[in-house]
């Protein structure tokens, strides 16, 4: 048995049956990280010594018969834009290179209460701005399926770490696809919950009205489990909503009979890789076979979504990132003669190019004289896009579409061309713009052996519907049994 190959629910089973101990699990993951992290570069910071000590303490409690919950001793990776008290929380930016969070995000508190062990903080595109994790100020994370390719982004570190078995699961954040797209490129499951289902308190904001913390896991059951742990109304986040205590595992029925699935034809057109398209149609056929009703429809938003998303996201980012001014924390320039210089030089030195590009763009669209033409118009389009989705959900339960127009691309292939990288977001951003839940699950590999992701989108707070549909497909298709990321495992031979 290879411990790091197991899902969380499998680990829990083995802990329950005393086939495994917490210390064995943590040790296995620590060893795996020590062995493989240098090939993947998925972490900004690891806490292996702390994890081993914590595992020992938890194991002792278990041995003493203390009841400490079903998740005690399960390891996790946390994206480096989620504050965990006393840990470095960098957003993969020079600006926060030495920032130690003085408090914990609500989600981190919840994991801590379950005695879940944080193995490390995962790499990302700086301030979550990017689709390849190449915008990290520290390192480039590699795709475990092909080490010359990107893992996607911005939660690329979390996705690669899960795919490479460096953690059994991870937390990410998704503002325009930052969980689903890397999950797709790394062949794992990524769930972005409905806006407001999970507290954002302690998530370092990129775009407040779009950001949402979510999960990256090896299978759908683990996604349901982790979502159950982190969801819920938080008094510290006014935009979080109270939906009661839902156990998302209960919805995994392995049954899609009568489920109405829509394929929006606009997202299957030009720009979509032929092999990706074929895999998605195959998936649609599988759903039909399982008893779902699948129909092609028109959701006429595709030509607006990127402009709408980038105007809103960058406008909010330009404001959210104002606090990084070198006064209270973060990078401060060494030499300055007045306050203006502290601001300008600290920010010029601390932020990377893509972050600067978005701050400038966002500042521009909010400026007087341009506000109506850009920001206000984008808000109108946001309402329009939501309405288009609403119309679709009057008739259908789920929208099925690609997560990414292509499979993983080469490191450096698009990094010089921001527009190319923005286009990689085309399939994911509308879900954030409309505040909907979306899940990406693997539905095959292309001819290069790279995983293809399928995106299932539900109506607001219909996580149960998309989780069940994803689970039913997963049970039928058995992707994890068929395909494994070979590159990372082959690399062992090279050592």
């Amino acid at each position, binding site marked *: 048995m290879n411990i790091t190959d197991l899902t969380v629910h499998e680990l829990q089973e083995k802990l329950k049956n005393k086939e495994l101990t917490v210390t064995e699990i943590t040790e296995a993951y620590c060893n795996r990280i020590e062995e493989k992290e240098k090939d993947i570069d998925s972490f900004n910071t690891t806490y292996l010594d702390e994890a081993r000590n914590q595992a020992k303490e938890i194991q002792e409690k278990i041995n003493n018969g203390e009841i400490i919950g079903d998740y005690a001793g399960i390891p996790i990776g946390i994206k480096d834009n989620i504050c965990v008290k006393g840990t470095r929380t960098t957003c993969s930016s020079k600006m*926060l290179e030495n920032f130690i969070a003085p408090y914990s*995000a609500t989600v981190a508190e919840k994991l801590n209460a379950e005695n879940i062990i944080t193995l490390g903080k995962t790499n990302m595109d700086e301030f979550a701005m990017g689709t390849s994790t190449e915008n990290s100020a520290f390192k480039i994370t590699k795709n475990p399926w092909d080490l010359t390719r990107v893992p996607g982004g911005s939660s690329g570190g979390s996705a690669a770490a899960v795919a490479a078995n460096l953690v059994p699961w991870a937390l990410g954040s998704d503002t325009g696809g930052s969980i689903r797209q890397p999950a797709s490129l790394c062949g794992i499951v990524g769930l972005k919950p409905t806006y407001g289902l999970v507290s954002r308190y302690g998530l370092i*904001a990129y775009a407040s009205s779009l950001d949402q913390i979510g999960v990256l896991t090896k299978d759908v059951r683990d996604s349901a489990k982790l979502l159950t742990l982190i969801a819920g109304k938080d008094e510290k*986040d006014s*935009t979080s909503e109270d939906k009661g205590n839902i156990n998302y595992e209960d919805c995994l029925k392995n049954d899609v009979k009568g489920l109405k699935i829509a394929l929006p034809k606009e997202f299957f057109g030009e720009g979509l890789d032929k092999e990706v398209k074929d895999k998605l149609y195959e998936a649609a056929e599988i759903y039909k076979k399982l008893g779902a009703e699948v129909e092609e429809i028109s959701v006429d938003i595709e030509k607006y979504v990127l402009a709408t998303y980038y105007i809103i996201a960058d406008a*909010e980012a330009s404001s959210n990132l104002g606090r990084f*001014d070198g006064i209270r924390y973060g990078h401060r320039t060494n030499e300055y003669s007045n306050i203006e210089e502290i601001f300008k030089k600290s920010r010029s030195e601390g932020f990377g190019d893509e972050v600067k590009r978005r701050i400038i763009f966002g500042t521009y669209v909010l*400026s007087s004289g341009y*506000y109506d033409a850009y*920001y206000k118009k984008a808000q109108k389009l946001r309402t329009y896009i939501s309405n288009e989705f609403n119309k679709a959900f009057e008739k259908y339960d789920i929208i099925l579409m690609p997560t990414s127009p292509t499979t993983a691309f080469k490191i450096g292939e698009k990094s010089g061309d921001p527009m190319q990288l923005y286009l990689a977001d085309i399939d994911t951003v509308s879900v954030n713009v409309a505040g909907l839940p979306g899940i990406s699950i693997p539905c095959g590999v292309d001819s290069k052996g790279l995983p293809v992701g399928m995106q299932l989108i539900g109506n607001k707070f219909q996580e149960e519907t998309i989780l069940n549909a994803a689970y039913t497909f997963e049970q039928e298709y058995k992707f994890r049994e068929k395909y494994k990321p070979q590159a990372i495992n082959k690399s062992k031979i090279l050592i």
Partner: protein
Amino acid sequence: MAKEDYEAVIGLEVHAELSTKTKIFCSCKTTYGGAPNTQVCPVCMAMPGALPTLNEKVVEYAVKAGLATNCTISQDSKNDRKNYFYPDTPRAYQISQYDKPLCEHGYIEIEDDDGNKKKIGITRIHIEDDAGKLNHDEFGGGTLVDFNRAGVPLIEIVSEPDIATAGEAEKYLKKLKSILEYIEVSDCKMQEGSFRADVNVSVHKKGEPFGTRTESKNMNSFRSIVREIDYEIERQIDIIENGGTVTQDTLRWDDVSGKTFVMRTKENADDYRYFPEPDLVAIKLSTEYIENVKKSLPELPESRYERYLNEYKLSEKDAKILVSSKYLSNLFEEAGKICGNYKSVSNWIISDILRILNEKEMEANQIPFEAKYLANLVNLIDKGTISSKIAKDVLEEMFENPREPEEIIKEKGWIQISDEGEIKKIVQEILEANPQSVADYKAGKDRALGFLVGQAMKATKGKANPQMLNKMFIENM
């Protein structure tokens, strides 16, 4: 052209700190004067990832202020971000309200310089957070920021440009301050900056359109505001008379030189890039909520004024003075209730307490003693325990070292001499020493009696009962 040919247009933006116990977006205390950065948390320090949550008390207090100033309360309101970089603004944006303020279209009534009633319109009242405070060279060189004040709730009350003179501006501000004090939403301590105004002034020739305005920020004394307005009106008229044009500048008033200085020109004005605050949900208020807030409002000055005339038979002038300040009015009502002699309490407040406040350059909210001390003082006079003259000294002492007047009298040995034998003895002594005055009195010069009583008071250091002295002098002459 002469100055009389010009008209001034004045608009005021008042910032009042709300007296909620906690800050507007977190649960830190709002107490003034704490050690630097001891009343802070991740939210008001704008730590990465921290989110604001709106303190409902702030909304309630702002609605109260709106209702007390005849505003329409908006049932559908929201917060907006006002973006700018400054070290005292930790988020690099203030959370304010832009196009949907909580309260709109109100007014308060004042008297213009000729004593006629005049309504000053209130454009809007909105809620926002205060910034931190910069300390220059206070802690051994350099500038350090104290974030205790960051996140203290403010309301900004924007007037219509209905004010024509410095006098009207002063009356408007005093009235507004008194209303906010009455409804207990702000303690309006100007010396602590919890009630401050941005003053907009422009001038134009009569019958012509409004001129270009200037703005002086953060003024926190009535006297400075009056001086600034008068100075600006004159300065702007001079510019126009000399063929120049007034520029739309932000000014700084310098109290020492009595002049304004340009802080920032329009060209360098910030573009605040307002947009809706995505971290907070819209503020929705039900009619029922607004009604309940309305019911919770205390009695306002207008109504108290009427009551003072009818119930306590005070003069219009006295009633007006008392209701001009919640603190005076409350002191009057509380002390009157305890001693029963409202008229006398009113007299003591208006003649002596106001004089002492004026001498000490204090505001009514700084009166250091309790209402019951004043009531007991009036009681002691009414009972004849002390003379009014001694009472004045007791009152002075109550300001210096607040305690029960009886205690003060005992300590100082100021109890009035009302013993008939003792008074008689004093009267006899004074009569013997002043035969000329006795002769004058007998010749019909009434003034001589006053002189003799005065001499007796002098001899007893003011402790003799004046009524008894009077009576006994007459009997003995």
